[in-house]
């Protein structure tokens, strides 16, 4: 059977979501619920950033939904004055998939953590990414289980000593960006909780993307994994470790832009001193490159020990979304065949028993 070409038009991430001309402020997005994260938790910063950013989209607040799973970060929806569902462990992406498919007029956001998204919910995450459902996933990565009080997570470094691993953890961690790109995600970005500007910019691009946008946010857990990302926040250290991406710009970093990303080996990338290789050798970032191996190579530059960490948008490519295509099939079916319940129930082969 040949598939029907649904001729889907290119849509923005927010197409179909009603907008408002009424000016909005961050406080419009704050619910009346007391925020109950630990003092100093990175989640506060992200919550503030999201609440400050959303007014810029100009959407009707009632058409925004936050869906979360289980974990510290998954309390997020309670603090947003939008619609929201705090669901069960690992399943937020699946719930959001149903919601986004049923309702094209909603802007659906998923808030999840490294345990929620990558451990118990890993299956749903990769399938959501491959389907490219129009969802925005904020993955708070603190490299630890916080809510269950301090066990290692699928992003903890090997050898991590925690309550459940007194002699050190044994398993190799995921690089969430590599994982997402491996699942052929159409949009993948990363930001630091402490970098309001960088985070807002990635969120903006994610919101505009039609399809699943995965944003990994490095987030500090002050209780069980304090300082996990400190080297990226230290002014002296950060310059030589953080590699910010900007589409169409050469990938250079360092205090004076002295380092650059260059091609090396079989399709991989590495860091070099620009002075050694020459400016022409520096890779110009192309987030729209259809071939995921480029963005994958970029993702491999971010090492677990944070020697280098890439931030910004790794990949942003257009591909039909599952939910648009599903709705288009319904529309096409309606056009081909008017719904007639009586005729469906009768079917083709009936017989009649006459009254005596």
């Amino acid at each position, binding site marked *: 059977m040949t598939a029907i070409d649904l001729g889907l038009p290119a849509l923005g991430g927010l197409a179909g979501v009603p907008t408002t001309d009424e000016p909005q402020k961050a406080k419009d997005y704050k619910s009346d619920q007391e925020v109950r994260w630990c003092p100093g938790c990175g989640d506060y910063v992200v919550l503030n950033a999201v609440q400050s950013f959303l007014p810029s989209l100009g959407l009707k607040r009632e058409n925004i939904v936050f869906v979360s799973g289980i974990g510290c970060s998954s309390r997020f929806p309670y603090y947003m004055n939008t*619609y929201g569902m705090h669901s069960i462990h690992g399943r937020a992406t699946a719930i959001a998939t149903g919601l986004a498919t049923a309702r094209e007029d909603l802007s659906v956001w998923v808030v999840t953590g490294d345990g929620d998204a990558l451990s118990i919910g890993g299956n749903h995450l990769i399938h959501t990414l491959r389907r490219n459902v129009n969802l925005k996933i904020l993955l708070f990565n603190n490299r630890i289980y916080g809510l269950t009080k301090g066990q290692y997570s699928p992003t903890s470094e090997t050898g991590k000593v925690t309550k459940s691993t007194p002699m050190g953890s044994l398993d190799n961690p995921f690089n969430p960006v590599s994982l997402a790109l491996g699942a052929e995600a159409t949009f993948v970005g990363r930001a630091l909780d402490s970098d309001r500007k960088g985070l807002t910019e990635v969120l903006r691009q994610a919101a505009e993307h039609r399809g699943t946008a995965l944003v990994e946010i490095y987030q500090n857990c002050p209780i069980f994994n304090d300082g996990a990302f400190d080297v990226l926040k230290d002014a002296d250290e950060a310059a030589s470790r953080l590699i910010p991406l900007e589409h169409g710009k050469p990938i250079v970093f360092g205090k004076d832009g002295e380092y650059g990303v260059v091609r090396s080996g079989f399709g991989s990338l590495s860091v070099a001193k620009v002075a050694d290789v020459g400016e022409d050798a520096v890779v110009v970032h192309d987030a729209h490159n259809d071939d995921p191996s480029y963005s994958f190579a970029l993702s491999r530059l971010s090492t677990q020990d944070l020697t280098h960490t890439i931030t910004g948008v790794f990949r942003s490519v257009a591909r039909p979304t599952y939910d648009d295509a599903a709705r288009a099939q319904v529309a096409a079916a309606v056009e081909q065949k008017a719904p007639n319940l009586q005729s469906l129930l009768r079917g083709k082969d009936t017989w009649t028993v006459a009254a005596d």
Partner: protein
Amino acid sequence: MSTSVDGNGATGGVTKLDRVVIRFAGDSGDGMQLTGDRFTSEAAAFGNDLSTMPNFPAEIRAPQGTIPGVSSFQVHFADYDILTPGDRPDVLVAMNPAALKANIGDLPAGGTLIVNTDEFVKRNLTKVGYDGSPLDDDSLEAYQVHPVAMASITQEALAETGLGKKDAERCKNMFALGLLSWMYHRPTEGTERFLREKFAKKPDIAEANVLAFRAGYYYGETTESFATTYQVAPAKLAPGTYRQITGNTALAYGIVAASQQSKLPVLLGTYPITPASDILHELSKYKQFGILTFQAEDEIAGICAALGASYGGALGVTSTSGPGVALKSEAIGLGVMTELPLLVIDVQRGGPSTGLPTKTEQADLLQAMFGRNGESPVPIVAPQSPADCFAAAVEATHIALKYRTPVMLLSDGAIANGSEPWLVPDVEDLADLTVEFAAEPNATDGSGEFWPYLRDPETLARAWAIPGTAGLQHRIGGLEKADGTGNISYEPANHDKMVRLRQAKVDGVEVPDLAVDDPSGKARVLVLGWGSSFGPIGAACRRVRKQGHAIAQAHLRNLNPFPKNLGEVLAGYDKVVVPEMNLGQLAMLLRARYLVDVISHTKVAGLPFMAEELQDVLTGVVKGVDA
């Protein structure tokens, strides 16, 4: 096989019968399901009442010619209303030695046996442990045996089509169908039309099948090995328009109807599993009704997507079998906590674990009832026959929407794949299922807020506000919620209240009173069943009554809550017999709730009860009480 009055039974080679049970049995690759299905359609087109039972292995193609590879289809058709696919066949069609060996035990003495002799060669016989051919010794003496070289006659008939030997041989099932169609005076146009449509893209295959079908028909007509043909007159059913339908199809139609009657789009979130997959296949064809089908990555994602859609104001549905329900349990609990409508269909099969995927069982009742953490009540509805799946699906959806709760619909393998005539309902007569979404703030404290957990005082259903409704933004979730406001609450008294409220809501679901059938009005024994055992229990009751005994029959469609008059009904009899295809799950619930010492009769063989075995049990109890 009972013979009706018409002289000595045979007139001009035609015997009139009131009912016949035919079983087609062959290798999984022999097309027995299709053959049986077509014969059923012919019986339906002729106006007989009918009931069918497919029985096939879980393996798609078990090793050829072996006992585990045997697939069969039993069809019971009659000139009156029948209740079951029949305990035992009157006619057995055996396409190979394995099919003969696996089924001959069910054929009563004097039964008709039609055998495809081409497969009775040494290799095939040895494979199933026959020393010599049973066609050549006296082991089949008790039966009327008709040896027919079906494969070679079919090949001969197709010799001029140019079809390869193997392809031609594959048409032998249509030869068998043609022969049986002749024997029972079945209309043939429907089958020829069906074959031409089915193989529209391969006209040569279509023609070959039609030729084989006709060859079988003419074989019966021209050879003298079959002295008699049989007629089963159309049944006198209630007036109206009928069609043949399987349980899974009826269930899918019920969901389409519920969607139309509630004006809510459906999102079916599901994962393929036997024997429930046909519900997905059916619903995926009805996109013109606004039905979205989502084949998820697993059972959990299926139900979660459905629940997400329900949150968005759609009718969320998930379909599965027992192992899938186990995986979905946590999400059902989330549905209980968030009080959202959700239809959970469990087409039960033999368990535990993977169990018997293609066989039937009723052993998920307690799983449906209690299979979640915490106090997590859900209403349960169980259809009693294939056609009843339609009304049961509509009813279950109605409860889900009206009370904002997940509802379990317990079908099973026997009615999912079995079929019977269905009096097609008039759409005008279907209930209106429209729901009202919350549109305005409802807080009782004058705050002007929306409280998602404020309840309708009558149904205890909470207000359902869907995203997109201005001013009603709210958050729900799996954490315990404060009564009314829906804010997170860990208050001891609130939790106690909420647990009791959720229970009270389900306990208060309106269900019709249990009707009791007792023509004598004097029965002292009640037989109470639920779900697909309705047919065999009903047939057994008829037999018991025919013997001159009084027995009352009642059948539960609502397993949670039970009908309000159930306790009273149970108390009205000296003995209550509860037959179930499990180890007594309903019996346990009845004993716990009503302190009635019901007699639990159980069978977990992967097959429905036979009327005759229940007849023996019931007669025994009735005689005991009378003594």
